[in-house]
């Protein structure tokens, strides 16, 4: 039984930040390792980085909306401390993956 004091929108978008941060970092590795993907992302908009930003924004909004509506509109069944841990860890993991990859491959 979750004992969250946070509203559904907050819970949904917190998890969305965590998931999108990691997904964004994995997309960095994928596009930097795959010339075809990088070229494709360059053709979608004026710059692969712009395409990357749009991908992140769409994923963030879509996941946030879906997760906020989950669990009969109450948002993910998770207590506050666990949600905070997942949000912070997801964001930091995303940053660490990007920095680590650039340190090795840059």
């Amino acid at each position, binding site marked *: 039984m979750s004992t*969250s*004091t*946070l*509203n559904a*929108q*907050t819970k949904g*978008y*917190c998890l*969305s*930040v965590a998931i*999108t*941060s990691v997904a*964004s*970092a994995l997309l*960095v590795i994928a596009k930097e390792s795959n010339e075809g993907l990088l070229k494709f992302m360059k053709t979608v908009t*004026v*710059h692969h*980085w*712009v395409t*990357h*930003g749009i991908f*992140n*924004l769409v994923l*963030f909004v879509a996941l946030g909306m879906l997760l906020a509506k989950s669990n009969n509109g109450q948002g993910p069944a998770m*207590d*506050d*401390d666990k*949600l*905070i841990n997942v*949000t*912070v860890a997801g*964001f*930091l993991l*995303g*940053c660490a993956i*990007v*920095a680590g990859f*650039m*340190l090795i491959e*840059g």
Partner: protein
Amino acid sequence: MTLAILLLHALTGMLFILAAGFVFVDTLNASAANLERIRTMSRLVAGLLWLTYFIGGYWYVVNYAPEKAFIMKGPWKFSHSFFMETKEHVFLALLLLGTLLPIIATNDLVTSKGARKLMLWVTTLLVLVGFGMDGAGAIISLGAKVALLPVAGG
């Protein structure tokens, strides 16, 4: 004009860090009296972060290529290959974290300990990673500068 855009990017970046620090302190003292101010300032943090993104993004997409070419010919290649590459991609996640702030502020921060704790974590990350972005920007600028300096003894 190009340098003015870059300076504006740094300025709005510093302002978002200051505003996030303000929200952190106000959240420590959350009460009915400052709840609306926290919500307004949270929206300001997100707004400044998006402004920083659009200004910096415009400069990066339109003007950075020649500077990158200089950096890659100079002694501080890492200022692009590590610092710029990391900064441009971590910023995308930071933008989402900043967007989360006004959403968290819709909770009742006076009664919800969890909401206050979440606000404190998010503003702390915004300030610390924001300072990291600022430092990375300075290193990238220095990378271009040392690439353009005459070789010592030459």
